[in-house]
């Protein structure tokens, strides 16, 4: 089936099998490998991307379901060499270790902050409850989101 998906502002078209998963489409077609495949069952959240601004798990979303929709991946966060505050927050508060969950965490919390610019710790924990960090950095991830909330309008910095 021919499918056209807007990924990070670019129209991406390809003939795909109806069963192809969005995560594979994103990784294979535009070659954006920041979106990770972790569990294949919607459990871990390493594959979270935004579909029309809402977080979805791309390992259990078919590419053909995204026809005409807008997908945003971790690669879209940095704009003109300037980091998104949520990326900066993760760096500032040491909210990552192996980095495998990080893209999904970043997209999940980016969506949270878009909807709720000043979340409580509890609201952050609920928002990331579908994402697993096996290096167990949840405390620092919550701190990272709070850092980003405090610096939303702040300057983007080089890392």
């Amino acid at each position, binding site marked *: 089936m021919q499918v056209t998906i807007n990924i990070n502002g670019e129209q991406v078209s390809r003939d795909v099998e109806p069963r*192809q998963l969005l995560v594979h489409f994103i990784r294979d077609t535009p070659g954006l490998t920041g979106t990770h495949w972790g569990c294949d069952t919607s459990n*871990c959240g390493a594959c979270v991307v935004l579909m029309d601004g809402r977080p979805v798990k791309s390992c259990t979303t078919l590419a053909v379901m995204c026809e005409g929709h807008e997908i945003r991946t971790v690669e879209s966060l940095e704009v003109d060499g300037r*980091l998104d505050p949520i990326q900066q927050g993760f*760096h500032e508060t040491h909210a*990552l270790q192996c980095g495998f969950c990080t*893209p999904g965490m970043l997209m999940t919390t980016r969506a949270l902050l878009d909807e709720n610019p000043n979340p409580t710790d509890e609201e952050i924990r609920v928002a990331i409850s579908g994402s697993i960090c096996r290096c167990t950095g949840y405390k620092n991830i919550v701190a990272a989101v709070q850092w980003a909330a405090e610096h939303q309008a702040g300057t983007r910095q080089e*890392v």
Partner: protein
Amino acid sequence: MATVENLPSTTQERPIGFGRLKRKEDARFIRGKGNYLDDIRLPGMVHGAILRSPFAHARILSIDTSRALALPGVAAVVTAKDLETLGLAWMPTISYDTQAVLAGDKVRFQGQEVAFVIATDEYIARDALPLIDVEYEPLPAVVNARKALDPDAPLIRDDKTGQTDNLASATWEAGDEEAADRAFAEADTVVTRDIIYPRCHPAPLETCGMIADFNPQTGQLNIYNGNQAPHAHRTVYAQVAGLAEHMIRIQTGDIGGGFGNKVPIYPGYVCAIAGSIVAGAPVKWIEDRSENLMSTGFARDYVMHAEMCSKDGKITGLRVDAIADHGAFDSTAQPTKFPAGFFHIVCGSYDLQASHVKVKAVYTNKAPGGVAYRCSFRITEAVYLVERMVSALALEMGVDPIELRMRSFIAPEQFPYETTTGWTYDSGNYAETMRVAMDIAGYDDLLREQAEKRERGELMGIGVSFFTEGVGAGPRKHMDILGLAMNDGADLRVHPSGKAVVSISAQTQGQGHETTFAQIVAEELGIPPEDVQVRHGDTDRSPYGLGTYGSRSTPVSGAAVAVVSRKVRDRARLIAATMLETRPEDLA
């Protein structure tokens, strides 16, 4: 410029390497620009998938691959028979056992590898799996370690000559049985507990996988594989495949967590290598989450019977009889000369009169493993046992659990102290450490809160644990895996511009070695950590070493980095002194 000599000594206010740093590796990870195994695509690469056993124990009567081979896109289906012709049907484990790469005679655990499909894409490879027809004759299975040695238990390892039961090894002992019996005979109080520490799984967020790329023209084997000990893996592959080590290159890329799970060598890796030889193309194989959980290295799974006694208000004796469940193949990861890992720290931090520890390992119809998951080797099992027993004894004696520990600790003046299981502790001040911990936790306040709540009919418990952990597996006299000892190297090069590259054999899975080891070089050389690049994860570009697990990187590799930095600094000073026509000691 800051130099080593004019830097103040390191303190909490001035950590090593020019102070606190944010991590160097974050820059790529927060942009989604890490380089994990699945991100690598090689030209002409094909994909592998594994057919797994639906039974815990069954005889394989026949395997028919014809329907799978007829599927368009399938390049090959490899079975045990094919591997036999390559001499790769069985592989050695790191505990001197053998493990089937693909099951030929029997399957011995649910999820065991039976066939390996190679196809043009990962979807087709998986489509082919149900098209492989395997005829099984199910056999009785044993999954309970305590029943593995029953006379009527099914024999799991009938592949091993002379194996007549499910004992995976002789009984391991430490301590003095007679002395321990005497301590118990003279005791005032004795407690007994059966402690089951169930199997768990490290479950790194990135599963295990490999890209194997064998070049038949040059005989070079390039491997991309996120593992915790690339040099040790290369040595094993060299032995298994009959290649020289320098003809094998392992590159790890970034690793999405390990936690012990990426220490062992798995059948899927050998399949990918064999597949590349058979297919004449790079083969990528990555397991899914279910495969990771059902077939790769687990942790714990110890069934322990313990007794502890006291006399005159102090702990005096410990007796332990434990069963280690090793699954169908013994691939437990442990480097100590005592075959139950660091289990001999089971007498904890206490000055005992005597102890006696027995551990026997059994085969069961479960996945193999026994890795050091977030601890050193079998430390967690040992600590859990001894601390649980001390608390049980305190309860029985009617004394505060901290008070009993305080009375029984090894005293500072007793160090170096040889424990009753024969392990030497070099130093310690346990009572003082405990007092500091109690202050930090506010133990007296907690006791008051507990009393008030109990008054009101509310329940509140206070957990207490004190442990001595052995980390930094290193010296050859105590540690070894496959005769490789437990050494790690470091190679430091300083360029004319003053920038440095340090190559290490430790293997980060997220620990942040690129930052930490740069700080160590910075501390020793007096150059900023930004000017130090840490190179790792490539056997062609790093010195030999045993890798990262059991909290050993900084104690072992870190020490090597510090030593090599000092050598470079001293050499540089000598050369500079000659050039400046002065004495080396006059140069800062």
